[in-house]
């Protein structure tokens, strides 16, 4: 232990009350920082979980982010001739080479992917017609990327897997048609052949629009109905860690060329609202630590004033100005470290306490627990803020102490 550090420790230990008050300030600051941060971040995660669970984490579309250049433009990039109304080659729309592309996506860790062909069809049943969205799916893969299986009120995705002419509809549509399980519904698309499909499952998500207009059938069947053989136009991805979606989106888009939209991109407006909310929250809780830093400043300034003779004798003895500065900076660091360690313990206690709290929101039927975020980044943030405030508070007293001129003090005594 260096002599400077020994002096620093002695200064703090010999002034128990101011030291404890400074420590309490930092400890309470860190504890509140953690409690508020864990609650806010927890509720944010809770909100996002609801947001992302009901939609894919990442969707790859059969579109390009920027339109493909025309062949004439590629051939004569500086040409003055403009060709209008150039018709692209007649081509069945969809993701080209989807099997290899899907294989590539599935080779990435921590995600599940499912191919989908989405199209519009008209369903006719008992004299009524409804235009709906029909998604052609592979049931085994769909289970990995969607919560639809949990939302089935009758039948299941497995029933679709074994019945090539099966159809799954939402509860809203079933009510409109007055159709129940086993009903045979006529399906027509603008391109392909009409076909009669049998209802093998009914789901209810709670989102009325979705329950009214979304239907599922087997991928092969939908490819036939829409006359797009061996085509898919979407990949739907689900991640173990939803926050990995944004990075994966740019990787996938760079690799396969098609537009890949993560849930973060799709709900950018909400994400920026959450970011602003976090900024406000962290400014407020950091302000607590800044206030606590004034306690440290006060304590250290008092020590410098009380110990001016000690400083004078140390300097006359041959201690450098920087030795003196280090003593007081070390006191700031010590108060910051010990205070924030105490605060960490206190904060964890508060968080555990908050996690026990049960509330019943108005209109809800179940008790819910407060959502608490336990991520380590907020501890680092709290420690960082606490240490910066503590050292910042020590800078001025340390500089003042380092500038003490022993002769000035000695003359004053004589």
């Amino acid at each position: 232990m260096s002599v400077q550090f020994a002096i620093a420790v002695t200064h703090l230990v010999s002034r128990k009350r101011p030291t404890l008050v400074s420590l309490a300030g930092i400890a309470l600051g860190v504890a509140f920082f953690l409690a508020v941060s864990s609650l806010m971040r927890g509720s944010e995660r809770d909100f996002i979980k609801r947001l992302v669970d009901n939609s894919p984490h990442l969707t790859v579309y059969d579109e390009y982010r920027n339109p493909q250049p025309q062949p004439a433009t590629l051939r004569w990039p500086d040409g003055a001739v403009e060709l209008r109304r150039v018709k692209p080659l007649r081509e069945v729309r969809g993701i080209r080479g989807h099997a290899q592309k899907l294989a590539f996506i599935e080779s990435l860790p921590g995600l599940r992917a499912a191919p989908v062909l989405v199209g519009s069809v008209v369903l006719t049943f008992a004299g009524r017609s409804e235009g709906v969205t029909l998604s052609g799916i592979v049931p085994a893969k769909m289970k990995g990327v969607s919560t639809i299986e949990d939302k089935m009120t009758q039948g299941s995705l497995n029933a679709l897997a074994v019945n090539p002419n099966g159809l799954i509809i939402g509860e809203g549509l079933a009510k409109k048609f007055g159709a129940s399980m086993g009903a045979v519904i006529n399906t027509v698309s603008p391109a392909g052949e009409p076909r009669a499909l049998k209802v093998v499952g009914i789901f209810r998500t709670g989102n009325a629009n979705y329950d009214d207009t979304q239907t599922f059938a087997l991928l092969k069947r939908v490819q036939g109905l829409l006359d797009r053989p061996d085509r898919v136009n979407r990949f739907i991805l689900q991640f173990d860690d939803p926050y990995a979606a944004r990075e994966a989106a740019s990787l996938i888009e760079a690799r396969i060329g098609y537009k890949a939209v993560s849930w973060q991109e799709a709900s950018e407006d909400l994400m920026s609202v959450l970011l602003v909310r976090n900024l406000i929250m962290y400014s407020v809780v950091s302000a607590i630590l800044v206030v606590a830093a004034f306690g440290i400043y006060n304590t250290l300034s008092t020590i410098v004033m009380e110990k001016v003779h000690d400083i004078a004798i140390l300097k006359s003895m041959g201690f450098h100005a920087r030795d003196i500065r280090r003593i007081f900076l070390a006191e700031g660091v010590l108060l910051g470290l010990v205070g924030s360690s105490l605060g960490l313990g206190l904060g964890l206690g508060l968080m555990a306490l908050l996690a026990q709290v049960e509330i019943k929101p108005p209109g809800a039927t179940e008790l819910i627990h407060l959502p608490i975020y336990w991520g380590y980044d907020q501890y680092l943030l709290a420690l960082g803020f606490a240490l910066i405030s503590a050292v910042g508070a020590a800078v001025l007293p340390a500089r003042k102490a380092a500038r003490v001129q022993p002769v000035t003090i000695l003359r004053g005594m004589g």
Partner: protein
Amino acid sequence: MNPILAAEHLGRVLPGEVPVTLVQDVTLEIGSGEFVAIMGPSGSGKSSLLYLLGLLDTPTSGRVWLEGRDTSGFGEDELAATRLAKLGFVFQFHFLLAEFTVLDNVLLPMRRLSARPEDEARQRAADLLQQFGLGDQSHKRPHQLSGGQRQRIAIARALANDPLVVLADEPTGNLDSRAAANVRQILHDLTRDLGKTVVAVTHDPTFASVADRRVGIVDGRIDPDWQV
């Protein structure tokens, strides 16, 4: 005589609206092993001269030579390093660190210099205290001891790094006559037994009488005619 500490036309003026001259044109040579008493009336500038000789203050004119080296070009760090290794100070007030034990107070300069391993430094500190009759007090706090004992601890601290010169500013000014006699004897023994050079500011005539040489200071100048 080979001077260990010398002042050459030394002057110190405190700047301000009305500049105050503390020391002017002092030329002085102090030999190794000499015991010099600087004397003079209150406010004559004798303490200021001691601070200049001890490299605590920087002169506005002239220079201080230590061991034949001109110190006028030294930066603040080099001055501090020189004070640490070569000079020892004893003041009128003991200036011991109240929260540290007697032993730790004596250890402070050695720990800062860190020329000796810790156990050797502790041994040396204990020996110094023993030498001044404080061997059994080493784990007490300064406030538990008498004024004379504290001043002896301050002397032990000044000697910790085995300095060339011990500078004392009214070392007996705050002591009763018995304690003063004891401190006087110790400083005297330093020159006789250990070959240290001692420069002491005092207005105690008894103290001055045991010195090898007396230098009178009046109005910041050396006054050869000054008598107690």
